[in-house]
């Protein structure tokens, strides 16, 4: 049968942003996928070179608009490493709380959009969105921003937590725990979802390691590697963090990893709030930031909701000489060249959803 080339995206309901996939189809079977990226390239890395250190966090947040706080923290941590500034203890706990809340929000958004891609079930999307909104309200209360927070300062935070934040958060966590359990029960008792996720887009352990994927995609393939436990930062060691992984390597495993991560994050936030010491958590005022030593190279890595984020910075006095970002979505998206091959066209979209790409993160 003659091969058909079909152009999916950059404007397509399921590509979440401006990903373009050129699919070669043999009948209904996907023969080859060619991802095209770069529609959202803003040149953030170059932009950072022209600015002083603490002028950049708001740009960093826009790299991944689904989990902005994580990138904010990654960048600030890089600058802290470059300038050699220690983080206050209470600030470490608050950062962990906010990062994990951000992870919950990000995974909830993923769950909604993925279910919508898989089965055109907009209801779950709306429910997840509503629950995510509750988490965003907490973050808004803590940081003052609804979508973009810019809450990290060198050595601490822009704002400490409000009094009573912990009690409100416990309530939200209880609610979320129930809701996530409900979603899990609903999705896993639905045979249509199960057959649309199981044995789809299988990535073996070796493939996953060789392709360099990170985050839930890697852990779905049976590799127990999480920066939070492999190279613990802040107080993750004290919080009895357990990384979540599955061995099947299919779309369902990746879904399961994310669901379990939401649960683990809920537990982490609760534990961090309980163990949080009193004290000062405020960071340095932006104007007091002194120059970094010249040509100092630092590399900082963090577990972002989408995978391993890494920043490499070469300093040059008051501004970075070079900043290089390893974006997890970029490397994870590359697997789209291999994963859908041999599957039906219809199955391409669950696979695409299970990778969880954010195109702003891919293109930067």
């Amino acid at each position: 049968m003659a091969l058909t080339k079909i152009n999916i995206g950059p404007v397509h309901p399921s590509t979440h942003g401006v990903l373009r996939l050129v699919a070669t189809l043999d009948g209904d079977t996907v023969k080859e996928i060619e991802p095209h990226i770069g529609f959202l390239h803003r040149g953030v890395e170059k932009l950072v070179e022209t600015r002083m250190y603490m002028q950049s966090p708001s740009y960093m947040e826009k790299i991944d608009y689904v989990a902005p706080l994580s990138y904010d923290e990654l960048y600030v941590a890089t600058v802290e490493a470059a300038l050699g500034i220690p983080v206050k203890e209470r600030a470490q706990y608050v950062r962990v709380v906010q990062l994990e809340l951000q992870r919950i929000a990000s995974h909830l958004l993923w769950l909604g959009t993925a279910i919508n891609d898989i089965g055109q079930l907009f209801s779950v999307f709306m429910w997840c969105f509503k629950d995510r909104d509750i988490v965003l309200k907490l973050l808004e209360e803590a940081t003052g921003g609804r979508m973009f927070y810019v809450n990290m300062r060198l050595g601490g935070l822009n704002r400490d937590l409000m009094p009573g934040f912990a009690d409100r958060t416990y309530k939200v966590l209880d609610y979320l725990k129930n809701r996530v359990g409900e979603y899990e029960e609903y999705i896993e008792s639905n045979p249509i979802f199960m057959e649309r996720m199981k044995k789809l887009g299988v990535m073996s352990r070796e493939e996953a390691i060789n392709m360099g994927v990170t985050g839930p995609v890697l852990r779905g393939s049976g590799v127990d590697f999480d920066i939070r436990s492999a190279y613990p930062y802040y107080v993750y060691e004290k919080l009895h963090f357990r990384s979540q992984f599955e061995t099947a390597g299919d779309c369902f495993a990746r879904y399961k990893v994310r669901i379990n991560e939401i649960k683990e994050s809920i537990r982490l936030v609760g534990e961090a709030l309980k163990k949080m010491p009193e004290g000062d958590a405020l960071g340095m005022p932006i104007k007091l930031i002194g120059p970094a030593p010249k040509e100092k190279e630092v590399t900082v890595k963090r577990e972002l909701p989408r995978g391993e984020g890494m920043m490499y910075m070469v300093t040059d006095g008051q501004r970075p000489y070079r900043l290089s970002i390893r974006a997890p979505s970029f490397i994870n998206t590359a697997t789209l060249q291999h994963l859908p091959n041999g599957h039906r066209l219809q199955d391409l979209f669950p696979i695409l959803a299970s990778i969880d790409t954010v195109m702003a993160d891919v293109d930067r």
Partner: protein
Amino acid sequence: MALDPIIVQAAINAILFGVAMLLVITAFDYIFGWIERKLVAKIHLRHGPTRVGKFGLLQNAADFLKLFAKENIIPARANKIIFLATMPIVAAIFAFIVLILPLQPNLLGVNLSIGLLLVFVLLSFVPILIFIAGWASANKFAAIAAQRSVILLVSYEIPLFIVIAAIAAFDHSFAFTSIVAAQSATWNILIMPLGFVVFFIALMAELERPPFDLREADSELIAGWLTDVGAPLYAISLFIDYTRVFMGGLLVSLLFLGGWLGPAFLPGAIWLMVKVLVVALFVVVLRATSPRMRLDRILHLGWAYLIPLSIVNLYLVYLLAIGVI
């Protein structure tokens, strides 16, 4: 040439009934459209339309005006005539099917002795017309949707026909009036529950409703066979969408739920409308709570379950008719 006055009278009656029925269809489409939007919004934890008119009641009118005021874009490579003509023809087929369905023994356009057959013969034209429409728009997504339409045709027409064969055999008629009259003691849904399940699933596929909305498949094929249609044609497609739910509700009510039969304090036609509305609401809830199925799964369901079940149903009805069970 002198016309027979009885035929003239019948023709006038049919035309009057047709006009009245079109008004009923439009009214149902309008109200159902609003109910669907509101109900789905409630399930989604949204508000649905609230701004235009009280409770957003005029929202659909505003939408239709907007859609018809827009330019009708025809893709350069599309086959113009077929592209423009298929959608109205599909709409007309659904409207025509509603016209030959009776609302009450004394409220019907034409009492055809082969009404049941005619309805399902007309209905099986629709996937073919959709195939033609999708192909004519010269869009690859529409073409894929067109092929899926044929897949649905081959897997769901057969069980549908076997079930209506059972109904016609049990009630000794192809006329809707006689089928409803035969249900005065027990509704068909109690006589052949298996047949009802098969019929309803096959009808959902026929109506292109979730979980069988493969031809439109939002998240995969953008809008399926409607990907390239312009706004006015899209308005017609919305009309088709609601009309076929009305038609589906009428068919289910007439064939299985006793049609206009009901306690005497309300006229029969009202009872029928109530039943149609219940079926339609069920269809909406199904849309909001069930994910789309895989294509191969749908084929499997059609061939491995629905066809054998419909044959079992036929046999059970045969045993029932000869008095064995």
